[in-house]
């Protein structure tokens, strides 16, 4: 009798499991994100998670994603990669082996993204990533697409603008994080500064998680550079470093290609970051932004307490790119989706855009987005220039014909 009862319970349990997983697999697409949700870069990760969930909500409320005659809802699964490769590997294992996701839409950090990519490409999962390094792109990685502007896109227009408006700029000190993101950014930074006739007097490295910036600040100020370039440092580190160099009496040109929200940097650095040039900060309340971006930044202020920035909005754009890819391929197969992505024009928070960049990376895996050159003035961000990539302009014009 007891054995019969055990078998009955097991059978009912198995049936319930089959039923629920069956329904879930048919109706809900799980989408993963891998971003820092703790530490100095947490504002990026928390914001990315929030925008990805906003995209999921918009899709679900709009009727879901349609493919193969069925409609699917989406669900976002977010994990903390702590901006390092070791945690990125754990997140990769969790997403791809435990949660069995086929799509990752939104990652932050080159090292954790590369750790994830090594598994996602093997497992045949689609990776819409935010790696800043160029090493995640190319024909070797057919299932990987970058959904944020990266050094090759943003650094040339940013530095050109800075040099044009500061003709006396002759020397620069570069400080980069001692990881894949920092190293790949430094290569591009050094090359572009030198091409503009600016001498790199110091290129130094620091560990993410550094809490005492005084020794680094003393070293940089000792070189007496006209400008300090912080590469891809997160907002907390940027504010802390510029605060320390101000204590030492330095007041030159401040540049940070990955500088995002003025508020986050101001919280830490106060007026020490005033005048800083950025390339990943946009005024999403301003007239140049879209209705979606204005709505998202308003929501993010309420949810997270700060306005949205370009790193954070990537979560929304990645999920929307995935939706467009699935519907264009009319399939859930990541390989089929990856095959159609370079050919379609689709809606993101920025409006219509497409993947390109074949000339630079060897395959069209880079989302073509406006490049926003900004400057922090009196604690607020002002957009100085918004450059639309030539390739995008051509693609949109061709699509109109």
């Amino acid at each position: 009798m007891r054995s019969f009862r055990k078998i009955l319970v097991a059978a009912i349990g198995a049936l319930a499991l089959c039923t629920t997983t069956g329904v879930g697999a048919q109706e809900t697409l799980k989408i993963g994100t891998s971003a820092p949700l703790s530490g100095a870069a947490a504002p990026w990760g928390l914001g990315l998670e929030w925008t990805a969930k906003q995209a999921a909500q918009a899709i679900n409320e709009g009727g879901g994603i349609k493919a193969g005659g069925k409609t699917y809802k989406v669900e976002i699964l977010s994990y903390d990669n702590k901006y390092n490769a070791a945690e990125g590997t754990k997140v990769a294992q969790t997403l791809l082996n435990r949660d069995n996701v086929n799509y990752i839409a939104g990652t932050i950090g080159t090292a954790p993204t590369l750790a994830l990519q090594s598994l996602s490409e093997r497992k045949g999962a689609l990776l819409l990533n935010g790696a800043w390094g160029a090493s995640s792109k190319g024909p070797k990685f057919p299932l990987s697409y970058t959904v944020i502007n990266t050094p090759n896109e943003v650094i040339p227009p940013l530095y050109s603008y800075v040099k044009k408006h500061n003709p006396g700029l002759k020397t620069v000190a570069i400080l980069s994080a001692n990881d894949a993101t920092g190293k790949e950014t430094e290569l591009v930074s050094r090359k572009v500064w030198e091409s503009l006739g600016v001498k790199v007097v110091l290129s130094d490295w620091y560990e993410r998680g550094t809490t005492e910036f005084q020794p680094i600040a003393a070293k940089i100020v000792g070189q007496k550079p006209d400008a300090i370039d912080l590469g891809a440092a997160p907002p907390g580190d940027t504010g802390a470093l510029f605060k320390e160099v101000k204590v030492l009496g330095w007041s030159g040109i401040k540049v940070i290609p990955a500088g995002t929200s003025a508020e986050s940097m101001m919280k830490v650095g106060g007026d020490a970051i005033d005048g800083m040039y950025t390339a990943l900060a946009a005024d999403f309340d301003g007239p140049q932004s879209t209705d979606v971006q204005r709505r998202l930044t308003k929501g993010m202020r309420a949810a997270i307490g700060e306005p949205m920035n370009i790193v954070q909005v990537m979560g929304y754009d990645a999920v929307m790119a995935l939706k467009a890819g699935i519907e264009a391929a009319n399939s859930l197969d990541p390989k089929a989706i990856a095959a159609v992505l370079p050919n379609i024009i689709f809606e993101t928070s920025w409006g219509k855009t497409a993947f390109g960049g074949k000339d630079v990376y060897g395959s069209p895996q880079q989302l073509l987005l406006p490049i926003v050159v900004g400057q922090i003035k009196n604690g607020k961000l002002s957009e100085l220039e918004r450059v639309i990539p030539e390739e995008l302009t051509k693609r949109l014009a061709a699509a109109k014909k």
Partner: protein
Amino acid sequence: MDIYVQLLINSLQISAVYVLFSLGLTLIFGVMRIVNFAHGEFFALAALLLAVAVPWLVGIGAPLPVAFALAFLGALGAVLVLGKLLYEFAFRRFQRDMIGSFVLSVGLALLLQGVFIEMFTGAARKLPTLIEGTVRILGGAITVQRLILCLIALLVAVAMCWAIVSTRLGKALRAVAEDHEAAMLQGVPYRRIARIGFLIGTLLAAVAGALLAPVVVISPVIGSSYLIKGFIAVVIGGLGSIPGAIIGSILIAVIESVGGYYFDPSLATIAMFVIVMLVLLIRPTGLMGNG
């Protein structure tokens, strides 16, 4: 900027933080013979509570110095309550058990970090500056807040040394640290002294976290980075030795400051670990340890 003076000032201000942190770590080891890897979480909790309480108090109309003072006392109280709970329900059972306490404290550190991330989110926080201004000393520069932090660290270190040498409690702590069985035979109430020692160590971590909160970026993982440096300092100085913790802290601060300037911050960190290995090989009890 006179670079030599600046390097000296940098070394002093960094060592002030490490001294405050490592004093508690070494005291707990001395009394209980446990390396408390959850020590950084006491430090982090105090800083996080200040980061939450100060803006809230200012928001309801309290002047900034009053908000700081109230939040400071509240944070110390909350950390002491947590320390007492952890002592009674966990550490008390693993006294003088190096392996058991190692596993316990590492597990608690991970657990508390997870709880803090859930409670406070992982976002980095920054408190408003309490005292504005920079002081110039012989061509070097330091903020007024950091200078006050250095002076408080100096006071705490002096007070600790005096208390250990001159008070009944200090003598009991030393007796227990040297030979707890002999101390018990002399009538020293070991359990009570161990509890007090643990709570003083916890309080020192909370004081360090609360004092440092206005000058650093606060996140739930902030304790980990200070724990590593604090641990290196007490290993070099000698586990359980108060003067050793102070000397070890100053030494690693000098390496971080001078090594980071002339070489590379990463090389400076490597140098610290090399020195730890050399100390363990040549003098395993540390510079001031008595075994």
